[in-house]
């Protein structure tokens, strides 16, 4: 009897502790989410709330028939396919360099990590100046007698965007360093006794034992990259509501445009739901595949 009340008491405590999160999550998370889902099946355009018409899957059909959204999706996948692996590789490389027991570690760590601490508005203001026509990069190119490049023009706008994104690749540094510290030293010793070269040690010890950290970085990085819209708009658009230059017209930029520039709420929300579901499926797929390539030292409680 005593145990029973104790048990119920604990349930009560649990729910009391999570209630601030739970209440807000239901009212400002679940409810808007479903409301948005409902609106994505209507012709809502910002003013017609009183005479909303249910349009079935029309908005969703438009997502796949609209050449703009297909183009934007293609660009998004391209940017993600370049940005995410490079970011991962740079982040791991920086961490490995700093893990070589060098002097002044904390200074270099700060230097590499700093770009990811800077707010995106400042980052873009800095890089816009660097990339601009008479900007620093061209001044630099001039010194080296290289031809001037229109960095924010049609041809190079995506390169510029990716360069700016890679500048922040140190964001995974702290996690990577922690991961590297977690690799038992005796594994390296054993490899050394077997006469393994540094490169072999990297592939047989470091990389396999870092897979769980890389996995986390891969998931978080891909999600962030697929949902990117602020950076291209700020870097290569005139104002927040103007579309950025075509090559940087990414998927969520398209959704943002539909909603804020054209008030096509229904269609914009359908675009977002498609992305959300795609990301969800992708994440499940990556999670499922992870058992084949991610190494965990202890049994995981999932």
């Amino acid at each position: 009897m005593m145990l029973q009340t104790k048990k119920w008491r604990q349930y009560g405590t649990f729910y009391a502790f999570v209630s601030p999160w739970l209440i807000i999550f239901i009212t400002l998370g679940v409810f808007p989410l479903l409301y948005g889902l409902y609106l994505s099946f209507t012709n809502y355009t910002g003013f017609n709330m009183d005479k909303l018409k249910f349009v079935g899957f029309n908005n969703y059909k438009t997502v796949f028939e609209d050449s703009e959204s297909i183009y934007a999706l293609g660009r998004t996948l391209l940017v993600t396919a370049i940005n995410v692996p490079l970011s991962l590789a740079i982040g791991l490389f920086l961490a490995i360099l700093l893990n070589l027991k060098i002097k002044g570690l904390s200074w270099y760590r700060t230097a590499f990590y700093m770009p990811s601490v800077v707010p995106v508005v400042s980052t873009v203001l800095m890089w816009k100046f660097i990339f601009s026509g008479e900007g620093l990069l061209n001044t630099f190119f001039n010194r080296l007698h290289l031809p001037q490049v229109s960095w924010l023009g049609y041809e190079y706008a995506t390169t510029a965007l990716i360069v700016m994104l890679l500048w922040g690749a140190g964001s995974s540094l702290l996690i990577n360093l922690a991961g590297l510290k977690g690799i038992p030293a005796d594994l390296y010793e054993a490899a050394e006794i077997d006469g393994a070269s540094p490169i072999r040690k990297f592939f047989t010890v470091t990389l396999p034992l870092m897979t769980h950290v890389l996995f986390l970085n891969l998931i978080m990085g891909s999600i962030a990259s697929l949902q990117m819209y602020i950076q291209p708009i700020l870097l290569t658009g005139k104002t927040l509501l103007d579309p950025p230059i075509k090559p940087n017209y990414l998927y969520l930029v398209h959704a943002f445009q539909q909603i804020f520039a054209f008030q096509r709420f229904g269609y914009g929300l359908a675009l977002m739901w498609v992305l959300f579901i795609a990301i969800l499926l992708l994440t499940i797929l990556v999670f499922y595949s992870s058992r084949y390539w991610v190494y965990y030292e202890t049994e995981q409680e999932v």
Partner: protein
Amino acid sequence: MVNSGINKLPLRIAVYGLIALLTVIFGYPFVLTVVNSLNPLGSLPTLLPAGFDWNNYVLAVTMIEFPAFLKNSLIICAIYVPLTTMSSALAGFAFARLHAPGKKLFFLVITSTMMLPQIVTQIPTYILFNKLDFNNTFYPWLLWGIGGAPFFIFLYKQFFSSIPKELEEAARIDGCSTLRIYWTIFLPLATPATWTAAITCFQWTWGDFITPFMFLKDENYPLATALATIGYHLPDNPNVVLQQPSSAAAILFMIPTIAVFFFGQRYLVDGIAAGAVKG
């Protein structure tokens, strides 16, 4: 030794050389921005300092309503950051140390909301708040703050899970309530997690310009939104961006986040290690 490989002198030189080069690459954009924020107004960009003109900073602060926007930024952070941290800690503790039916499901929900594009819920919320007349007030941040953030709940859960059971049991035998155990034992032990959450949350909130852009009007914009939408232009030609004051503003705007990072660096390293690696 793990790193016996770099004991040879030529290799050591190569490693330090590479690190120095990378430091220059990652640091140079900062240097360039500072240099150009001090150049004469309207001058072409230079790679090395061409002057030392504090006036650009004066312009950055006076050309737009900088103090008013700064005040709004501070209000939003003051409302949102402490609330989110506190609420996330509470929920994280519950997920790590308490048991109840539905716990696993809720935790799954939390981890999956981490991958939800924020904007998917923000737009319907905007429509909703419009009906409630909440738009153009700071109430939304109060409510969101109470709700915590999935990422921090996750972080706290990881951190609280690693604390030995004995501490809790000893306190329970002494007759402490769960809230007391949480407040006097667990929360103090989670200081690195708290700093990590608070610092990260501050950086997000300080830099977030899109949420205020949706929910507030010009006069209530924080600095982030003001810099992203208003900016610095020639008064009679909005197409000409004034680079030097813009650079100065970019520097001024990033100082708080950098300062907070320096202050909390040692906690961040511990906090992220605990939160991410034990995953």
